[in-house]
């Protein structure tokens, strides 16, 4: 053993642990050494110890509430869930043909989509590292399919650039990357990087730039078959006498810079949007429905909570049956997990400390709007060869997202014709009637897909500040508010603990709702078992 190096390299240590103790031990070791720490989720929760028949009242049958209900029931608690809506899921929601939705102000929409077509007005994509949500999908038999975040053949569009003509993501990305590589290669060869990069590394850097940027042997990014392999062809390779491919002209660097199209490229780079992403087959609400099926009659629907009281013996919640609003009823339990959105909870009478109440009052809710549009045919596939993914634009609609399922079929299709989040346009679209939102989504979208004009059939529009069960999209924490109030919001307050995406570091993500619920019930259970 005398030749053993004094310092064990981290990777060597891992393979040693792997060989001796198996992959599970290696996984834990990797996590503690800073690798593989992609999710705080530690696998199915284990609430050990006897709750001795303690009861928990859960407010809200969204993913946070239903996670809490499922796991607490499994651990031996008596659970009851009160839900405002006549369905489970909360923001985990899908609109299909025949569905009716009344937004605040009384505007009623009936979705006219063809059977099998839908939009998800709320969450619509699941990152691969949202391991808790993925685990529940697996345990509840919710089938997943890919959600396509990056489609190279979808469009980037700026109203004031390229005469309003949308550009293929593939070309913008290749041309931007190629010309930045060319500039960097030039600087390298002119000796301008000598202070920063060693001579030996400069040689490797040049090779890398040529490979990564599709540069020619002179380190130029030009119209040729090298760049065409990245940016696409003017005439694609064919067969027989029409076989020879030809290259088109790259978009100039200055044009890309001034168009600001580069700003959309981060949507394909950031951690939350990296491949692989998923969606439940058939609609996002497959998840909520699977939870609800598992929970059965534990959920009481049409229950509008009006007051939450507690004393040292238990919790009493007053609620109205929205089908029979004359009567106020009460439900009692030893403990309460409250997942009601803060936009609503802040308006209720609730017995909590000043610190908790201040936290509940401190979080405004983001504005967001989605518009689903049905067309007579899938022209984005038939005419534009766009199969799934998202086009981005600086028009108020912001995005057009194509269905990630049912590819290459004839017949109707539904796409997401607008997804506005935060900023002036989201409020402006909220202030319209649903019908106006649809009209404007069609009008703006036609600048990108002129086929809209002849193929549009019908649409639905959801503006989250007008959604009766949330009054907003998601908790919009400022850094200051989070620093001041977040811990107070999450603390168990007497017999009440809050959960939901608003009580997580993953705002607006379903994973945040589930992780928040798991964290809350773990602490609650700890307290119950100790007392």
């Amino acid at each position, binding site marked *: 053993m005398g030749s053993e190096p004094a310092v064990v390299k981290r990777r060597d240590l891992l393979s040693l642990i792997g060989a001796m103790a198996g992959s599970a031990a290696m996984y834990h070791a990797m996590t503690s050494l800073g690798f593989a720490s992609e999710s705080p989720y530690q696998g199915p929760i284990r609430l050990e110890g006897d709750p001795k028949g303690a009861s928990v009242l859960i407010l809200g049958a969204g993913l946070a509430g239903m996670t809490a209900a499922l796991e607490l029931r499994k651990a031996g608690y008596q659970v009851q869930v009160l839900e405002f809506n006549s369905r489970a899921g909360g923001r985990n929601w899908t609109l299909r043909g025949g569905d009716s939705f009344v937004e605040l102000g009384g505007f009623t929409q009936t979705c006219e989509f063809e059977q099998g077509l839908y939009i998800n007005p709320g969450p619509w994509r699941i990152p691969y590292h949202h391991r808790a949500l993925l685990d529940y999908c697996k345990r509840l038999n919710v089938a997943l399919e890919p959600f396509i975040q990056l489609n190279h053949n979808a469009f980037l569009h700026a109203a004031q650039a390229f005469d309003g003509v949308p550009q293929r993501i593939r070309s913008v990305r290749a041309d931007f990357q190629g010309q930045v590589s060319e500039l960097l290669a030039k600087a390298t060869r002119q000796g301008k990087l000598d202070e920063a990069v060693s001579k030996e590394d400069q040689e490797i850097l040049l090779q890398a730039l040529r490979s990564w940027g599709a540069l020619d042997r002179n380190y130029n990014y030009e119209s040729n078959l090298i760049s065409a392999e990245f940016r696409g062809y003017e005439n694609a390779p064919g067969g027989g006498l029409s076989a020879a491919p030809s290259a088109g002209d790259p978009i100039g660097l200055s044009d890309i810079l001034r168009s600001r199209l580069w700003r959309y490229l981060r949507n394909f780079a950031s951690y939350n949007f990296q491949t692989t992403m998923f969606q439940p087959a058939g609609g996002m609400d497959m998840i909520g429905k699977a939870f609800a099926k598992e929970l059965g009659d534990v959920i009481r629907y049409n229950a509008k909570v009006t007051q939450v009281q507690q004393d040292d013996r238990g919790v009493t919640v007053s609620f109205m049956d929205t089908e029979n609003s004359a009567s106020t009823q009460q439900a009692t339990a030893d403990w309460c997990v409250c997942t009601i959105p803060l936009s609503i909870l802040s308006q209720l009478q609730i017995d909590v400390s000043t610190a908790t109440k201040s936290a509940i009052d401190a979080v405004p*809710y983001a504005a967001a709007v989605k518009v689903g549009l049905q067309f007579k045919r899938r022209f984005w596939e038939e005419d534009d060869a766009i199969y799934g993914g998202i086009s981005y634009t600086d028009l108020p609609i912001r995005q057009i997202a194509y269905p990630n399922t049912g590819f290459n079929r004839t017949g109707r299709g539904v796409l997401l014709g607008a997804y506005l989040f935060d900023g002036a346009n989201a409020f402006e679209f909220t202030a319209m009637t649903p019908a106006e939102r649809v009209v404007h989504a069609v009008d703006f979208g036609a600048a990108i897909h002129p086929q809209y004009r002849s193929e549009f059939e019908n649409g639905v529009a959801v503006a989250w500040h007008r959604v009766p069960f949330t009054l907003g999209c998601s908790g919009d924490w400022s850094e200051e508010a989070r620093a001041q109030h977040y811990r107070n919001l999450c603390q168990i307050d007497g017999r009440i603990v809050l959960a939901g995406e608003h009580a997580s570091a993953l705002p607006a993500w379903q994973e945040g709702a589930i992780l928040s619920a798991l964290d809350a019930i773990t602490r609650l259970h700890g307290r119950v078992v100790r007392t």
Partner: protein
Amino acid sequence: MRSCKLETGLQSCRTAACAALVVLLSQVAAAFAQEGSLSAGNRTFSSGYRFVELSGEELFVNVCQGCHMVDAAGATGAGSYPSLAGNQNLEAGNYPIYLVVNGRRAMPAFGDLMSDGQIAAVVNYLRTHFGNNYQDTVTASDVRGARRINAAGTQN
């Protein structure tokens, strides 16, 4: 000014050929007729993060009405948006200014989305419409004052 106005009136909408859209357009026109509000062609779309609407009425119609509704009567679901009609909380002009700048509970903060002048305009509009009749106007410098109080951390 960083942002410019982007008018996309329905008149400019090149949709006449599309029967379905024509139906929708007529529904929208009917909705507007009922509401007795601006014509659909006057919809404003801001081109950046901040609002470009300048008058109090334009701000109310394009922003506030989203929650407080066309007649400012508010709405109720699991929680409520309060009615601003005949609302005595508007009597002291600084109170609505503070709420628009900082938000509170279900009310989003608009301090970063509107200028001092815009906030003063929309507060003045609210205080003189919908059954409110407070003739003392608030000014952009009142809004500036409210922002300073907030920055100093003496409220919240």
